[in-house]
């Protein structure tokens, strides 16, 4: 597994998309910190941008990379290697490459301009989202033979998580505004990794107060050690479940 991972990383280190991704994040991060006078305000804007951009670009890059590597993956599957090792190695390599690009592009500016708890939370949740959407991208590529269909499913997945899921939550909150539904909304928000990441960063910036009672419930739940553990486990499951599914599907797949 490590042999395949090592050479996939060498390949990814010179990949123009990965380098462009790091450059884009660097440009956006530096732009926001330099244009905004207040680093906290810049971090809030960066959070909104990063929580949409990181999942999208990670997901699409992973899907396209896996399709581009398909013929070579078939050649690897003819070598004396277990299929699960091949896919795990490739998933690990893409995750590492995207994490390096993320920390270079977004991590360095955040650590320079906003090295506080909120900044660190953005970096950690961003890193978690990178792993989550690499795993989802791998699953999408393994389950769909057609490239266009795979990219389409990737985009729909992203739209569902970034826009549709939020809209549904808002609709539920609006429809049941006369009832105490916050205890339901908190776990529902935690089911979406992007929402979960956003909540964790907002709590560290003390924006939860602006959300009224809902914010208080978030603060009460995720502010506790138990809540943090639930958040960590939720994000971990978002990595492990699609990755395991992808590896199992790849092991049984006709190539």
């Amino acid at each position, binding site marked *: 597994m490590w*042999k*395949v991972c*090592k*050479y*996939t990383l*060498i*390949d*990814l*280190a*010179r*990949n123009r998309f990965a380098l462009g991704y790091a450059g884009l994040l660097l440009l956006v991060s530096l732009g926001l910190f330099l244009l905004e006078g207040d680093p906290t305000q810049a971090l809030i804007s960066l959070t909104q941008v990063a929580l949409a951009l990181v999942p999208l670009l990670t997901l699409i890059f992973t899907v396209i990379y896996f399709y*581009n*590597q*398909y*013929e*070579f993956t*078939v*050649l*690897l*599957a*003819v*070598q*004396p*290697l*277990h*299929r699960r090792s091949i896919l795990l190695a490739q998933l690990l390599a893409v995750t590492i490459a995207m994490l390096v690009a993320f920390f270079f592009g977004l991590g360095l500016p955040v650590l320079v301009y906003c090295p506080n708890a909120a900044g660190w939370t953005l970096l950690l949740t961003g890193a978690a989202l990178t792993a989550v959407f690499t795993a989802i991208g791998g699953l999408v590529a393994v389950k769909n033979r057609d490239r266009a269909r795979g990219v389409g499913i990737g985009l729909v997945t992203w739209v569902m998580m970034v826009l549709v899921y939020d809209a549904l939550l808002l609709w539920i909150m609006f429809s049941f505004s006369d009832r105490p539904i916050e205890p339901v909304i908190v776990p529902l928000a935690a089911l979406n990794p992007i929402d979960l990441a956003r909540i964790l960063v907002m709590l560290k910036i003390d924006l939860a107060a602006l959300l009224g009672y809902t914010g208080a419930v978030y603060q009460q739940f995720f502010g506790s050690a138990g809540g943090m553990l639930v958040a960590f486990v939720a994000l971990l499951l978002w990595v492990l479940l699609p990755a395991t599914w992808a590896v199992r599907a790849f092991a*049984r797949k*006709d*190539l």
Partner: protein
Amino acid sequence: MDRIVIEGLGKRYGRQWALRGVNARFAPGEVVMVIGPNGSGKTTLIKCLLGLVRANEGAIHVQGREVGADPTYRATIGYMPQLAEFPRELTVDQLLRMMNDIRNARSGSTDDRLIKALGVDVLLDKRIGTLSGGMRQKVSAVLAFRYRPTVLVLDEPTAGLDPVSAHTLLNAVQETRRNGTTVLITSHIMEEVQQLGDRLAYLQDGRLRALLAPETILDITGETSLSKALPKYLAQLPSAHVESL
């Protein structure tokens, strides 16, 4: 002892059988040309042998080991796919090192003659993304022969190669056969089939319709070239006939 034994092999995609009731035995040092029209099951047969697709019926044994979940039997197999695609940002040298690492090949244990014969030695520092399709095909040929396989599977190996490189490759096939390697080659070029094949395996609609020496077909039909003899031979076969092995 036969190197490859195929027994009652069947593969279905959905309701469509791509391969059905295939029985065959291939000996060490034998070159078998796998031919047939498009969609006849050639690729599926090869993929079953390589463990890339799972058969719905029957089994394949390579050197007495059943093709299945255990990938170690593939250490004895060399494979040259029809389409040679590798990680674009690796150099040829890095690709060769990667395969050495995967195969746990020690220095000096590999067969590097094709590297020079095909001119891959001057490409070692080049990134694969900068190579033409033909150059990548040469690299693919090098990888297939490099680990001294006892079973060599070549999928339309000369497609995309210049005539000189194709000639070099076919010579390498002859040489490796003399060393006892069983070679399976898919091809649409009848001259290659006639020149190289000890036997040809003709597939049609997923069935193995003939498995015999090209000379036998020439003798039966009275033709001198296989491209004329094969259609004549097939026309006289009953539609459900499967050559007994």
